[in-house]
């Protein structure tokens, strides 16, 4: 538990275009201890997804240092220590629910095939998917699809779960439920979660800390600790006065920055 989950120093993040490059976020300094639930908030296009993609080793940084679990992001990805949940679930339409969840056991060379079958049934049960094994993604609701995507990420038992607006396309009722289920999965597994959202309420409700990003120029605007207004296991009431005040404060901050 002594290693940090993510450690970034003067990180430059952006996209290379041949010899040119466009910087999206600069001077990112960030330390995420293991086991933290961190939410990342910011306006559209500020670089939230790009930041997650660098941690996931789907994109190389333009400069600066980053370690994931004390090692290079690539090592963490190759060891399946990082998992990723996409906004659109990204289920393969030709595979059933159980076949989609089993995908990490089917691709990825030797280590993948060592996954015990019990993990699949456990993940299905944990996400309330029992009975839907043989459905195709086209036969699922948006919320069910997102549950399948989370189950698929969990069967590798990653130490860090990267979630890119996983509930962004869901209705509020479903989203609130999945928020609570995610919190209880997080408590049970003790993994680190980096959770991107553009919903201020969601960011405040879920996170132990919030990172607020701003655009033009892209940067970390503020890192805010929410633990003082929550209980020890990161629980809170949505209607709690301190939470409501916090949401209003973050909204003001974002409005001033843009």
């Amino acid at each position, binding site marked *: 538990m002594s290693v940090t989950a993510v450690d970034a120093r003067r990180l430059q993040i952006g996209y290379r275009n041949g010899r040119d490059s466009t910087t999206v976020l600069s001077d990112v300094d960030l330390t995420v201890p293991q086991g933290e639930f961190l939410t990342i908030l910011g306006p559209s296009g500020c670089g939230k997804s790009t930041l997650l993609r660098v941690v996931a080793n789907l994109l190389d940084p333009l400069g600066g240092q980053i370690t994931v679990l004390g090692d290079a992001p690539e090592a963490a990805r190759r060891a399946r220590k990082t998992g990723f949940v996409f906004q659109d679930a*990204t289920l393969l339409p030709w595979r059933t629910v159980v076949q989609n969840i089993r995908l990490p056991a089917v691709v*990825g*060379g030797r280590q993948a095939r060592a996954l015990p079958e019990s993990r699949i049934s456990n993940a299905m049960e944990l996400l309330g998917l029992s009975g839907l094994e043989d459905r*195709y993604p*086209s036969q699922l609701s948006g919320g069910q699809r997102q549950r399948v995507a989370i189950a698929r990420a969990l069967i590798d038992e990653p130490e860090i779960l990267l979630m890119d607006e996983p509930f962004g396309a869901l209705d509020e009722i479903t989203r609130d439920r999945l928020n609570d289920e995610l919190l209880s999965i997080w408590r049970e597994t003790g993994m680190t979660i980096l959770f991107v959202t553009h919903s201020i309420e969601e960011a405040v409700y879920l996170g132990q800390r919030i990172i607020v990003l701003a655009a033009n120029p892209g940067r970390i605007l503020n890192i805010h600790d929410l633990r003082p207004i929550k209980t020890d296991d990161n629980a809170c009431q949505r209607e709690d006065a301190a939470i409501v005040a916090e949401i209003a404060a973050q909204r003001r901050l974002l409005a001033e920055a843009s």
Partner: protein
Amino acid sequence: MRYTHILAPIFGALSILAAWQFLLPLSGVPAYIAPTPTKIIAVFFTQTDLILSNFLPTATEAVAGFFFGNLAAVMFAILFAYARFIRMAYFPVVLFFNTIPILALSPIIILIFGLGMTPKIIIAAIICFFPTLVNMIRGLASASPNEEELFRMLSATKFETFLRLHLPRSLPMLFSSLRIATATAVIGAIVGEWIGADKGLGALIIQATFNYQSDKLYAAIVASSSLSIALFALVALIEARVMRGWAR
């Protein structure tokens, strides 16, 4: 009303056939230009052997041409999709080859391979080849960026990504090309028979035309389009089987 979508087109076809049957004699069009539907149908009963002995060679050539042409197209598409240098070197050659009209190419193929079935199979294969090649190359590249990243997150090998992502993703485009190829394969076989053959529906069409036997000519046309329809139905059946459950 559940069967309207089946009954309506049957009604449409029957009404046109009925109009053809009864209005044609009144119109004064001579029988050697257009026979009535009943006379065309009669050919299938009175000259069953003639139709069958010409249908089978064409069917064999079309099916074999369809199979080999599309198989080659799929294999070349995979090669071109994953071997960048080979694609850059040879795709322009394939493009050039495709611009040669099949009618200009066919006599050369007949000269090389003689009058048997082989040249017809080759002609049918060639006209199936290019559309499937292009569709399959596009299909293999049609996975979304998120799907590619999912496989990268899982450290999937190139071959695993091909087998589990690119190949299934290419199926919708492959099948839409295969459906069209059912008709073009039959056209290829018939064109080959026109240029040099003594049997097959193409040969029958030429003979019947020169002998003013319009009933045989039309019967040959009905037989060849039946062949296309049967091939199309077979492909559609396989497609439905392979892609059951897929979102449309």
